[in-house]
């Protein structure tokens, strides 16, 4: 299983903070699988400025996934 997290505006738009989902090949396949959850999901997760982190390291959507990986989707950061 994958542990999938959403933050800030992405969390609000998807109305989802965290979900568990079956392990798939890579982040692209995960987005494809998540897109079945609703009409907005593909648009939100494929937006050009979305940042993807796997196990808390920033990656691109071709990143390979493994069982128990933590995958996070978030917008550009605005701290400080």
């Amino acid at each position: 299983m994958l542990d999938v997290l959403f933050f800030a505006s992405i969390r609000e738009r998807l109305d989802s903070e965290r979900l568990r989902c079956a392990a798939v090949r890579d982040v692209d396949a995960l987005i494809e699988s998540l897109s079945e959850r609703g009409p907005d999901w593909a648009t939100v997760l494929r937006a050009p400025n979305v940042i993807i982190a796997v196990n808390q390291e920033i990656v691109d959507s071709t990143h390979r996934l493994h069982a128990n990986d933590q995958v996070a989707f978030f917008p550009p950061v605005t701290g400080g």
Partner: protein
Amino acid sequence: MEAAEVNIQPEDFDAGIEIRNLREASGTTGAVASFVGVVSDRNDGADIESLLLEHYPGMTEKSIVAIIAQAKQRWPLLAVKVIHRIGKLQRADQIVFVGVASRHRGAAFAACEYIMDFLKTQAPFWKKEKTSAGERWVDARSTDTEATARWK
């Protein structure tokens, strides 16, 4: 026990105490440089009433620790402290503290600015502003991304 270099906390901080700790932790320091970020009263043409700071627990700490490690490779630093607040903040509240101790002021000034520039563009924090017109997520600024480019 040595104090943590990075604290993510809802509580306010006392910059004077942090600066003293940096001076004491580093022994014979030549210089301590520090930065305090404060919640603005205006952004993008609107009055800010308050801010809500969200973060990614775990990754936030990890990314700031990595930024500090990079700074230590560039400059001879004796001690570093970063505090970032989360949760609800009012305008004029302190939001972030960066303090750096080194033997020389040049290294202390530069490392302090370097850590702050990368914290703003890499550490997973998000600000939601409450204005008179309602709530909105703050957009990332290209000037912040450009600020990191000069350290290449």
